[in-house]
């Protein structure tokens, strides 16, 4: 299972784009003057916003493989964190009101070493992700009963 940041995180930016496009349509529809320089500025804002959100989205990826949980961070410089299932002590799902309403949230993973990290941030359906991780940990522990 591999997940990235949810696009729902960028709703405020998409809303800004929508407002700008809406104002342009309104201006065009009403036959008002539309300045070319401003139109280029709007185009650049939209282009960079979409580019930025997509880059930010792909800068974090979370993967559950057979033996561990892997967090990859960065685009140009990469940081990969590997956490063995047997090192994980507990998993918490965190969602505030808006996140719950929109169906995304964070999954906090605690290690036996006492280290806590809000590792999995802004993913779609965090409960499903946490359940899948729990099942994998359970299976792994079953394989190693003497652990």
């Amino acid at each position: 299972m591999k997940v990235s940041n949810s696009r729902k995180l960028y709703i405020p930016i998409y809303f800004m784009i929508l407002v700008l496009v809406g104002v342009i349509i309104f201006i065009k529809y009403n036959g008002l003057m539309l300045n070319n320089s401003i139109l280029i500025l709007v185009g650049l804002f939209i282009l960079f916003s979409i580019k930025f959100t997509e880059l930010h989205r792909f800068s974090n990826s979370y993967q559950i493989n057979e033996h561990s949980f892997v967090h990859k961070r960065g685009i140009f410089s990469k940081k990969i964190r590997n956490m063995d299932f047997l090192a994980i002590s507990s998993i918490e799902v965190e969602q505030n009101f808006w996140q719950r309403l929109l169906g995304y949230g964070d999954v906090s993973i605690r290690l036996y070493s006492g280290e806590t990290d809000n590792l999995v941030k802004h993913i779609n359906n965090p409960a499903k992700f946490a359940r899948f991780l729990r099942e994998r940990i359970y299976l792994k522990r079953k394989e190693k009963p003497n652990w």
Partner: protein
Amino acid sequence: MVINYPEKRHKSHKKFALKLFIFGIFSITLFLLIYTSFSGLSLTGNIIREDYLNNSILISADLTVPVLSLNDEFEKIIIKGYSDSFFYVGDKKFPLSNSKENYIVLTDYEGEISFDEKTLSKLKGKAMEVSINGIPMMSKNNKKMKIYFDTNFNYHSLEIPEKAFIKKLNYETSGIIILDKKTTINLHDENLVIEKFYGSLKIENKHFKIKGYLKKLDIKGTKKISISV
């Protein structure tokens, strides 16, 4: 016991600054978009006018008619001529075949205008007010009316009394150019390049008359002249 969270605090500051930056850019863009459209202020127009008053070459010329296409905002366009077809204004159409000398005035026009020596090959845009043979038509609710010709329009005269902007004009021509009211240049089938002209324009009896300011002028032919500011 001392607890420090330097990295987290630094990260949240950075995030807040980034959010503020994006929102700032959005607000400025939205403000400019609304301000320029609703106040009728033309940013480029004002910039052009101020810049041209400070630093430019005064030109007055009477030349042969070029093939030219303009896409801009014009305060007024006056056209005289005829066509076998119609002139469309908003949801109405006006026959132009009844008269050989139709008189059309476009006020606060925004759009394309393309012409050669004889015909207006394209006139497509929006205007606040249109007058056809003395019959005025005003826009409703401050909305500009869509206007266009469906076929070529044979014009006798075409005039843009002020604020016509020609980014670049490059063609072989004959005629007279007067620079800064003192230097006269006679052209005989020579290549003329005009860059960033701003002023009035009139085409009548196969004469292309311009009066205004420009940034660069190049003549290549029997004489070689290059002036730029």
